[in-house]
């Protein structure tokens, strides 16, 4: 029995960019009699659409009008009041003006998961075959070396990969064009970026980790559409880039989050803990007073911007959305850019089918469309923003100031980035008090494992652990003694535990069943120590309104 299905276009990932690509492509196919029978298959690893989606989110609505004219979008609430607030250790003051690019007039608060469910329904109505709960773990290539689709992970195996009685071979999906829309640090996108050297000549991608919670709060705490961005505490103290957000949602809910760069030199830096500390600041705490935690989660964001974007097309494949770094600082907005990238990819794919040529020669159209469109304009203007902050907030503000007056160039032209894992220093090289020591006495209101519970995480026990130490020997000789096993700190899900035995022997224990799929370990572990692979389909968090 064959275990292969064929489609014309395979889209891997049901986030906003993958779904926008699917919807727009379905429209384009339908509008062209020669292409009206082309099939689009979209696969997502979440148990249901939106269950792995986490974002702030305040969304620029124009892209929805471009994608779906005349269809109302289930946003949560329109931004009615906004402020940027500078936090000191105890103090706070509202900035009298909005920093450039950070205004949100006319934008909407939303649950991105909700938006994705809405988009998935529309895609299905338009004839796209949408399947959630299936994880693609392998890229397929044809004899010419073109991407030929992807294969689902094999299920029914034990920790060593040996087949159990309920073994089911993963289905192979063959497609003329494959779109990688896996979101931040896509595990297959990473493979093709490496295979085809797509990051060549570009800056390293750099990331932030965002921790987010949704609370039910008393009516008086905050109004729907009321949004605040915070800067300063506690990030500024730690010389990491980032800030917090507080978004009032309908039905007396509030989304709070802290997004911090992963460039910390201190291997013991812990974003989850910083988030819990941030929540105790009087300015933040007042919004949560007498409230109840409903959901919790974490995800990374690619922040490198324009210069960090990989080449996003190869023979028979395209990369869209977060996987291709479509995110613009300083407003931290990527949803509309990702969706526009999906729409541009759709146009290029339709063009390739018209030409019946799936090589780079036609797919370059995707990059051309991006370069000539508003995405480029928006990302190019802030092309040096994020890099400017890598020497700290003060330097960053200086850089950013000069960039505004030079249309984004700044005084130094193209600023470089350093990959986040290379930023991490050994414990002995950290010049200031270690984060873990500085906040040793701080006890968060609840621990990471509780947060994992509020993310609805589950993983099948019987599978190859999807968190993989690349070289156990190096890990034991370097990462543990020199770096204090940083994963035990930065992982927001406590998937990693450094256990010290009675005889003082230290070993890393992996609890992959906690994993929130944020990908921080794949990004941040020094010496390239950890690889994040996809686990079984349907495993992972079960976000409902994130």
């Amino acid at each position, binding site marked *: 029995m064959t275990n*292969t299905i064929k489609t014309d276009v395979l889209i891997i990932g049901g986030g906003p960019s993958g779904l926008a690509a699917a919807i727009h492509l379905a429209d384009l196919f339908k509008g062209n009699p020669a292409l009206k029978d082309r099939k689009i298959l979209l696969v997502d690893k979440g148990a249901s659409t939106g269950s792995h989606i986490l974002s702030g989110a305040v969304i620029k609505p124009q892209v929805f009008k471009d994608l779906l004219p005349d269809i109302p979008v289930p946003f949560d609430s329109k931004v009615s009041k906004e402020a940027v607030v500078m936090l000191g250790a105890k103090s706070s003051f509202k900035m009298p003006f909005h920093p450039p690019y950070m205004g949100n007039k006319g934008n909407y608060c939303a649950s991105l998961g909700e938006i994705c469910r809405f988009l998935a329904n529309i895609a299905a109505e338009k004839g796209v075959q949408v399947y959630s709960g299936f994880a693609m773990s392998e890229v397929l290539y044809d004899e010419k070396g073109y991407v030929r689709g992807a294969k689902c992970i094999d299920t029914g195996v034990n920790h060593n990969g040996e087949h*159990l009685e*309920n073994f*089911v071979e993963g289905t192979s999906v063959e497609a003329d064009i494959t779109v990688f829309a896996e979101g931040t640090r896509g595990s297959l996108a990473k493979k093709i970026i490496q295979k085809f050297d797509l990051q060549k000549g570009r800056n390293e991608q750099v990331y932030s980790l965002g921790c987010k919670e949704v609370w039910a709060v008393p009516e008086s705490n905050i109004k729907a559409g009321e949004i605040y961005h915070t800067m300063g505490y506690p990030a500024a103290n730690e010389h990491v880039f980032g800030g917090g957000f507080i978004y009032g949602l309908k039905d007396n809910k509030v989304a709070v989050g802290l997004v911090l760069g992963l460039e910390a030199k201190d291997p013991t830096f812990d974003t989850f803990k910083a988030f819990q500390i941030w929540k105790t600041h009087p300015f933040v705490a007042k919004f949560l007073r007498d409230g109840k935690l409903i959901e919790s989660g974490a995800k990374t964001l690619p922040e490198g911007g324009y210069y960090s974007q990989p080449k996003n097309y190869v023979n028979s494949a395209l990369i869209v959305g977060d996987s291709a770094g479509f995110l613009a600082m300083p407003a931290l907005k990527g949803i509309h850019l990702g969706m526009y990238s999906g729409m541009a990819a759709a146009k290029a794919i339709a063009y390739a089918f018209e030409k019946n040529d799936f090589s780079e020669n036609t797919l370059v159209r995707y990059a051309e469309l991006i370069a000539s469109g508003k995405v480029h304009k928006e990302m190019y203007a802030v092309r040096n923003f994020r890099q400017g902050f890598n020497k700290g907030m003060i330097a960053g503000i200086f850089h950013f100031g000069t960039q505004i007056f030079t249309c984004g160039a700044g005084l130094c032209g193209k600023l470089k980035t350093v990959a986040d894992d290379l930023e991490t220093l050994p414990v002995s090289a950290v010049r200031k008090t270690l984060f873990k020591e500085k906040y040793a006495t701080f006890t968060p209101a609840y621990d990471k494992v509780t947060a994992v519970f509020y993310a609805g995480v589950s993983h099948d026990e019987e599978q190859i652990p999807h968190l993989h130490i690349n070289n156990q020997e190096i890990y034991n000789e370097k990462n543990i003694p020199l770096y204090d096993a940083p994963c035990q700190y930065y992982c927001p899900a406590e998937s990693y535990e450094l256990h010290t035995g*009675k005889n003082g022997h230290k070993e890393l224990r992996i609890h992959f069943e906690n994993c929130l799929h944020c990908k921080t370990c794949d990004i941040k572990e020094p010496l390239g120590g950890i690889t994040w692979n996809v686990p079984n*389909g*349907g495993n992972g968090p079960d976000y409902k309104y994130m």
Partner: protein
Amino acid sequence: MSLTIISLIKQVPLPTEMRMGEDGLMDRTKAKSIINIDCQFGLEAGLQLKKQYPDARMIVCSMGPVSFENALRTALSMGYDEAYLLSDRKLGGSDTYATGLAISTLLKYLGFTKDSKDRFIIFAGRQTSDGDTAHVPSQVAECLGIPQATFVEKVTSDGNFTVNARRIIEGGYQMLKLPLPCLISLTPTGIKPRKPSLIGAVKARKAEIKVLSVDEIGMTSEQQKLIGIAGSPTIVAAVENIESDRPPVMLAAGQGEQQLVENFIAGFAKGGNVLQKKEKAVKEKKDAPDFPVMDKRGDNKGILTWAEVVGGQIARPSLELLTPAKHLAEQLGGDTKISTVLTGKNIKHLAATLFEYGSDEVIIVEDEKLEEYLVLPFSDIITQIIREKKPEVALFAATTAGRELAPRTGMKTGSGVTADCTGLEMDIYIDRKNKEIVRPILHSRRPTYGESKLATIIGFVYPQISTARAGTFPLPPKQNGRTGITSEFKPVLNTEDFVTQIVETVRGQGGLQSLFDADIIIAGGRGTVGDGLRKIQELAQALRDKGLKAEWACSRVVVDGGYAEYARQIGQTGKTVRPKIYVAVGISGAIQHLSGIKEAGKIIAVNNNSKAPIFNNADFGIVGNYEDIIPELIEKVQNGFTFGL
């Protein structure tokens, strides 16, 4: 000749999201749904059998609202080919009797009867998580008149249209050989259900699911009178919450095993958390309306019980059963007799034991062929006795035998059956529709919805049949020298009843009694097999060295893995232990295990997963790796810590 593999499945709410409507019936509208876990194991068993019969026709059937199509599509994506859903408003509120009747009618409609030319096998789940009765498989098999094996965890075939089923029994297992057609119900301990494949999901989405009504499957108007809430012989009369009498767990704080164990001991010395009892609102007692009182028993009189014989002895649960039997007899009035059916070979002498524990009459059924329990002849015999003796109540111990024997018998007598009861009382039923009060009537109370609710079920067909949970009722006081009436019953034995062959019966020996007598039990679960439970045994030994009555035990998975003998297994098959201290190490806390330790004094859980359900049911908890914690505990024991004993 081809084989058809049929799987019966039910869609249930995710156990964590179960809610109940005001009427005590499940509210299926809100919760996220899955295929009932046991049914998933049934689906997998069917797919495993297909490996031996690659050309088998694969059918999946369900009964319920149209939303059950989701479950059927999942089954199709796992590898089934055809799906049928019996869906009809008339079926709403059906009890297990009515469900068994309706599903078997569907199967007959699809062409599967005892005499079908094409061979077929039916797989089902042992029980559902929203009902927990385990009745429907036996009832379907009885309606179709085919042999059955329930509580099965693995099925193989020799390729010659017979199957070998490994059936779980108390303290062991039994290998049964069954001819086709037959029905097998699966426990969730065998081969784990596979994940659907994408290619399967694509196929399933295109597939047609045939939705059928009761008229379409040819249910006669007579049969239709027996389904739905109106036709069902039993109803749910009341539901109340069960409040845990165990206070919230006290988790030891600290980093590293040394600190954890020290903090645990400190907490233990303080006595742990205290249960905050909520004041129960006193219910206003409403006066019964002024309806005429009706006694509907007719000429049905007396209480019938069945005594299970295991290894030449009356099984303990069958003696425990005489406690509620006696209670009911007293409530019914002085002349109500308890008659006990004793079936087997050379068992006459066991009647004396039954008299001493409270039976008034023992009905002896002796035959060469009855040496070992088999559901077909035993249900036939008991039905013949019920027809002759006309008892008003028939009770079975809820052992693996009783839980299939009762529904199969009930299907023959038209009685509804209430499973796994923890309380049995004679009471009244106020029938507001017909403006009458029925008295006396049996109220059978049983925990349900993951042990969170206590439902009261009443039946309207005599005899009312219930099974009583093993380990719940105490043994009746033994009255040495008490005697009663002995009678012999000569049943009509049907050769067809002996088509199922017992190939092998394995029961663990020894160790068992010491588990009942131990003051402290150290039990190891899946998490402790790394060293073959050596540390578990060392801790028990260390306690024995201090002069304590300590014993070690384990959970079901450990026995399955071959790390310990059956006699040491707690939970699942009804073994309830009552030590003063129970230390659960690396045991996640499956509901079956938890019900086996509910009566323990203090429960201490050691597990590296802080989310493990065991922590919701323990007094003290240590989150950590057993390899680190247990040696630390052993050291403390050697230095004099004896868990307060």
